[in-house]
């Protein structure tokens, strides 16, 4: 993805507040996606009677499944931390640090 070229001003007095908002929004979007995907899963397996009672609780991921989960989680952490990485050198950074 290309880097953003922006001329807009720092909005909150402390640039970390802007970053915090961005993080919370990313969490909200991700939570929405996960909730809806889980809802889809539960409905499908219930409708198709594929699930024995307690199957979800008893499940343990295989090493491959765990590796996939690890990769997805790392990618999500990278999304969550992106506002910090993008903000290095942003307008207002030096001023806020000096306070």
């Amino acid at each position: 993805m290309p880097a953003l070229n922006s001329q807009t001003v720092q909005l909150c007095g402390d640039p970390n507040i802007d970053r915090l908002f961005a993080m919370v929004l990313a969490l909200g979007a991700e939570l929405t996606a996960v909730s809806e995907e889980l809802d889809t899963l539960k409905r499908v397996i219930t409708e198709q009677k594929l699930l024995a009672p307690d199957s979800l609780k008893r499940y343990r991921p295989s090493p491959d499944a765990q590796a996939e989960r690890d990769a997805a989680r790392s990618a999500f952490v990278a999304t969550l931390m992106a506002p910090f990485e993008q903000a290095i050198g942003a307008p207002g950074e030096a001023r806020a640090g000096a306070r």
Partner: protein
Amino acid sequence: MQFHPESPVLHDADLSRLRFVTDLKRHLFAKAGPENRRLYEARLAHPDDKAPRSPQAAGARREEIRLGMEAEPYFQAWSAVLRASQDLMWDYVGRVVDGDLDRLTDRFAAAKARSSGSVTTDPTLAVPDYLASRDTHRMPGSYHADQRPDDVRAGAVYDLGGAIYQLGIGNATGALLNDSRGRTLVAFLHRNYPALAPLRILDMGCSAGHNTAPVCAAFPKAEVHAIDIGAAMVRYAFLRAEGLGLPAHFSQQNAEHTNFEDGSFDLVVSQIVLHETTPEAMQRIIAESFRLLRPGGVAVHLEVPIRYEHFDVFDQFFRSWEQYYNDEPNIEGVGVADFRQLAEQAGFTGVHTGFQPIPAKDVPTPALSASPLPGSWYIVAGTRPA
């Protein structure tokens, strides 16, 4: 799912995230936004603010209000979240497109091999400073990023992101096709120029071509040309048009000075292009639309419905939020412009200006309104005299 035959493929999780962004924007604009006016009235309003003042003369007071609002924690937080929602939108849209980019690139190559339309890029074309100096509406890479052979990325990102944005501001009339501007422009033309049967049409600044499509559909006998500053824009716009069965001729050009000959079109249009330029470039684009028309031809420039003469001084500032905080270069330039005068200076006669509602099913197209209406676009149109 796909929202047109050549769109990027969206998976359920993508839709969940983008629906979240849309809901968030709707909430910020419709529910949380009006609180800013109450804040202004409680803390910053001056009795003179309500007095009629020309948009130009109110400039200093707009600036005072901007600085006053920027010191208010509520405005800071609301603006920071709105801007973060924009960045999140482009991030998710970018990931959707990146995940599908190889397939889209292959589709472009296949479409080029069989099309009756065309696509022409110009690697030597200079990007004007008003577009190069910032990424318009914070889309990373803006309109002109061109990063790989047959790159269509910027067009695909803008197509989907622009649609999500429109849904977020409450314009759901075109859903993800996001074609309300083209449909509005066509409705205006049919009502005001019922005899117009253009054989050659130019769409200036077509971006992803989502509003070129309704113009192509309305005039099936016409040869339609569409230009944009971005190579990846015109490639994607070409692909999109092919998928919809509305082929056209796309080329990478600057709307201020194109390579078409004088008098070579019957109809020239632009759709929300001017507010992304400068006051000087607006004049040049309007003049270029005049040069390109044959005598008797018609130009229509459709714009965002932000006209300062209809707003009090707070709304003059607040409705220009995107210029200050969302990397839009020329909202104020459009807000204060006298479009009738600009069109007449360029040589147009029979000039129309006003607000055109987005067409609704089974509702006759009304005349242009002199004052703003909800769900409308601003139009300036005129004829090159015979």
